[in-house]
């Protein structure tokens, strides 16, 4: 691994973001809207609910964590799509850049862009709606780690799908967080779901995060074994996604897919 090559991918993305308001705005605009919308919904629910239950850390905290995961995933995919949109594949893949350097660059780009969204969400949620992350304790670090790793894994997997099936397949990628969310138990306990859905939940690292968020808010403690399972699953998913990306890249080199990428052939 050569640091300068990974830096090049990050620098390319920073040049693009800094030179384009259309790229800067989405870094924080949608997450800010989500925070404001869900902030007022939780305030309203607190007002009309007779129970002493506080909806802010349950719903607003869940939305914040889920948006963080979505931004991380989209951060990786966006950095990859920039090469698709600018038809830069030949210049990138016909250079000494290795796949590990390229993917590392995508991940670092995502860290840079998703951090902006996270900071904006934290500021809005704490200052306007009084969400206190101290309530989650040290478990918050593990929550963010699991969601970050799973976001990276799905981002790399999304890039592999687009590399394999061509530019038009990007529309498979953007809705992935929405498809995963019913199984992740973002807003409700996993036990609410039918049994067959619960089996799928067991395979998804975010479900362990949101179950423990609710456990803490309910006055309990985070389950360390559950969070270890979630973290292990997320690490496994990252490794699996990297393996799939490398496999798709090798297939593309073997079949000449990269050289004629814009043709969108799926041989």
């Amino acid at each position, binding site marked *: 691994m*050569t640091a*300068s*090559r990974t*830096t*090049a991918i990050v*620098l*390319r993305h920073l*040049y*693009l973001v800094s*030179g*384009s308001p259309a790229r800067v705005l989405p870094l924080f605009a949608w997450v800010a809207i989500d925070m404001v919308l869900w902030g007022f919904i939780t305030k309203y629910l607190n007002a009309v609910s007779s129970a002493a239950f506080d909806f802010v850390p349950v719903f607003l905290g869940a939305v914040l964590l889920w948006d963080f995961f979505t931004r991380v995933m989209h951060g990786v995919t966006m950095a990859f799509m*920039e090469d698709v949109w*600018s*038809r*830069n594949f*030949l*210049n*990138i*893949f*016909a*250079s*000494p*850049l*290795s796949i590990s350097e390229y993917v590392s660059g995508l991940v670092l780009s995502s860290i840079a862009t998703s951090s902006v969204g996270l900071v904006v969400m934290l500021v809005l949620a704490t200052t306007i709606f009084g969400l206190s992350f101290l309530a989650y304790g040290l478990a918050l670090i593990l929550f963010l780690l699991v969601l970050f790793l799973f976001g990276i894994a799905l981002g790399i997997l999304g890039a592999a799908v687009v590399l394999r099936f061509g530019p038009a397949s990007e529309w498979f990628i953007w809705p992935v967080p929405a498809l995963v969310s019913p199984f992740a138990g973002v807003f409700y306990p996993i036990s609410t779901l039918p049994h067959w859905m619960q089996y799928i939940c067991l395979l998804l690292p975010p479900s362990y995060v949101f179950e423990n968020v609710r456990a803490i808010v309910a006055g309990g403690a985070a389950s360390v074994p559950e969070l270890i399972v979630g973290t292990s699953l997320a690490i496994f998913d990252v490794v699996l996604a990297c393996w799939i990306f490398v496999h798709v890249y090798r297939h593309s*080199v*073997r079949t*000449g897919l*990269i*050289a004629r990428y814009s043709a969108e052939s799926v041989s």
Partner: protein
Amino acid sequence: MAVDGISFEVARNEIVGLLGPNGAGKTTTINMILGILEPTSGSIRIESIDVAKQRSKALECTNFAAVYAPLPGNLTVYQNLRVFGLIYAVDHLPGRIHGLLKEFELERFRDVKAGVLSSGEQTRLCLAKAMLNEPHLLLLDEPTASLDPATAQDIRAKIREFANQRQCGVLWTSHNMYEVEDVCDRVLLLARGKILLEGDPKTLPRQHGMDTLEELFIAVARE
């Protein structure tokens, strides 16, 4: 099969023309050398390094420019050269970029996005990128296709000088037979994926009873 059983080498200081009709396999050959298309058999070595086994190392001393591979139009000239300079791990990058901007008359476009440059200016930018790492093997796929004759002549002279000074081998595809005669030390005539003829572009036509390289090219292409 796009190419079949082709074998050739490019020596230092040598400019080799890869000629052939459309679909002959020129770009396929270049793609294989660049490691973006795996040959079904055989091997490609750059400075004795096997591209299949040590792709990154082999490509560190290689670079290319092609009309179908423009640099990202949403980055400026300087940003493109900086990004690719880092990818090719170029030493003393700021100085190298400054020198190339001057050499390819791109100084006044330094902070202009590549997408708004004319096709000729974009070609010069691609050539500047191709020379960033002072490659030992330079692959040029129709490098002067979008240049006016005067600029094309200057670019040919620059590439010739680069090959001589930096001990660089150049593989050059072109449909301009005048250009090929002017700049290439040797040509390979490719048709239907096979090398049919090879030799000095100045003497090869007469050896086959033709007056010009263009006549020879047409004869081979129509065979």
